[in-house]
């Protein structure tokens, strides 16, 4: 694969010349096969990522390896840190200095980054963090899992903060969401998590080689030496409770704005659906096949796919499921997503959970079975 030169422009970045553009390169196929981890890395480069910090961990190591080769080629910053703890704090420093920063890891490493995320949220620092989830708790397994849903959407570090979370379900979507994640991070001065999983990271799919760029932002708070201006301080410490409360109230206002503007979701076969599956990421793809199989068997199934996991598309889900008989949350975890589904639906429709754990993934037939069971124990009274 050839790699073209400039990426810090507003023009689309080409990692291979598209056909018909002439140029010195010979026409190349319109699409190329890329591994999820590599595609997300290249998407970040195209989006103008200035600095990457990471640490090897399966199943995201290819992302680090891609950056190790590509970032120096672009004259940008790459550091393999001594730990995820160091990586997120290098990100903190680079972001404070005005860099567009990416960090990536997998579940255990994300736990180590939790401290840094809290500090960055408190310090209003943008960063994009990719979690290629694996099975847990503890060292767990390296299989694809979604057991970090609650951590990503409600947990990680301490304190009153939120972090936007995006859950791609295909490599092409991951490429777009990497760019959007940077845009959201900078628009609201917040960390953003891209919640992928081992299958998305390891799989290959065709992608269009045109990776879009993101215009550089021009913030007025970054550190470059107080030359001819008052010194700036990037910090999260507000020792007086009155001050900290004021700061936290301002943060909540930002989160309200994010909730108003950054909801993303997609629906499939929802119009006449009696049983609605709710799933994100790889579980959503399994659910798509399950919906097709259920429909072939005469069961009117549909799929509601949240893409922003925080903010959760609660109103959209409530509306989409208003006429349904039952809703089933399908996840590669023990019932984490289902909590948000229940909160969204407010008891108006019965909600069920179907999940596998530890690196096991629900099968399409398993999901169809869960739908049949949901059908069997409900009477359609809510519809």
């Amino acid at each position, binding site marked *: 694969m050839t790699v073209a030169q400039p990426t810090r422009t507003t023009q689309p970045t080409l990692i291979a010349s598209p056909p018909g553009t002439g140029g010195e390169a010979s026409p190349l*196929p319109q699409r190329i096969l890329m591994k999820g981890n590599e595609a997300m890395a290249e998407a970040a480069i195209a989006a103008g990522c200035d600095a990457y910090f990471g640490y090897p961990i*399966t199943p995201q190591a290819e992302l680090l390896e891609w950056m190790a080769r590509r970032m120096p080629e672009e004259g940008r910053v790459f550091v393999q840190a001594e730990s995820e703890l160091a990586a997120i704090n290098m990100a903190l420093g680079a972001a404070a200095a005005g860099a567009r920063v990416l960090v990536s890891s997998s579940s255990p490493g994300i736990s180590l980054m939790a401290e840094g995320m809290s500090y960055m949220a408190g310090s209003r620092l943008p960063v994009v963090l990719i979690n290629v989830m694996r099975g847990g708790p503890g060292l767990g397994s390296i299989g694809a899992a979604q057991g970090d849903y609650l951590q990503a959407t409600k947990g990680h570090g301490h304190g009153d903060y939120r972090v936007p979370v995006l859950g791609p379900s295909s490599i092409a979507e991951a490429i777009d969401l990497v760019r959007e994640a940077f845009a959201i991070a900078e628009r609201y001065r917040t960390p953003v998590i891209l919640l992928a999983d081992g299958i998305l990271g390891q*799989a290959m*799919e065709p992608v269009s080689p045109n990776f879009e760029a993101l215009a550089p932002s021009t913030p007025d708070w970054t550190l470059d030496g107080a030359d001819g201006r008052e010194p700036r301080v990037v910090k999260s410490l507000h020792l007086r409770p009155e001050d900290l409360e004021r700061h936290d109230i301002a943060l909540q206002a930002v989160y309200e704005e994010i909730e108003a503007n950054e909801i993303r979701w997609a629906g499939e076969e929802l119009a006449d659906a009696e049983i609605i599956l709710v799933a994100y990421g790889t579980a959503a793809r399994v659910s*798509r*096949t399950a919906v097709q199989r259920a429909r072939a068997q005469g069961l009117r199934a549909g799929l509601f796919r949240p893409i922003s996991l925080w903010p959760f598309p609660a109103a959209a889900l409530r509306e989409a499921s208003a006429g349904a008989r039952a809703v089933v949350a399908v996840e590669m975890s023990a019932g984490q997503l289902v909590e948000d589904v229940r909160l969204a639906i407010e008891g108006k429709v019965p909600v069920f959970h179907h999940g596998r754990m530890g690196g096991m993934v629900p099968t399409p*037939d*398993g999901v169809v079975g869960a739908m049949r069971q949901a059908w069997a124990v409900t009477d359609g009274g809510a519809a």
Partner: protein
Amino acid sequence: MERSTIIAGFGGQGILFAGKVLAEAALLEGLEVLWIPSYGPEMRGGTASCTVIIADGLIGSPVVDRADHAVVLNPPSLHKYEPLVAPGGLLVVNTTLIEAEPTRGDLEVLEVPCTAVARRAGDDKLVSIVALGAMIGRRQLVQRDTVHQALAVILGGRHADMVAADVAAFDAGYETGLEMVIA
């Protein structure tokens, strides 16, 4: 149309590579494709597998519970993947390493002595490409020419000298699969 293929065997048999060749061929034919490897410690010496799903529309589940084709190159893979093949599906068995017979009666079974075929074609290491050839010869999932192109794309550059040997191995397997059709 959506067709799923599982290729499995020992790490080092070229399992992931064979899957990539199939994926690249599908890409060249303008199809949608999803390639998923097994990854992690089991790759190093243990059992390796990959799944390739080819479709003319949006691909759903990366987890295959009803494979259209399974190519098994070692005994543990036969044991593990035979039950996952959909009724009427194709099971390609490498008889060089697998002595056991498949147990199901509702599958089409293609028995190929992959090492012997690969040796006749010039390189006895290319067992997975032989098996891939047999599967494609039998089920015509993608065109033979496209696979030749795919091999050139994947091996081009650093391993360009390998293309001819791989094409020969693929063709030998392909003929094996084709013969079974004619017979």
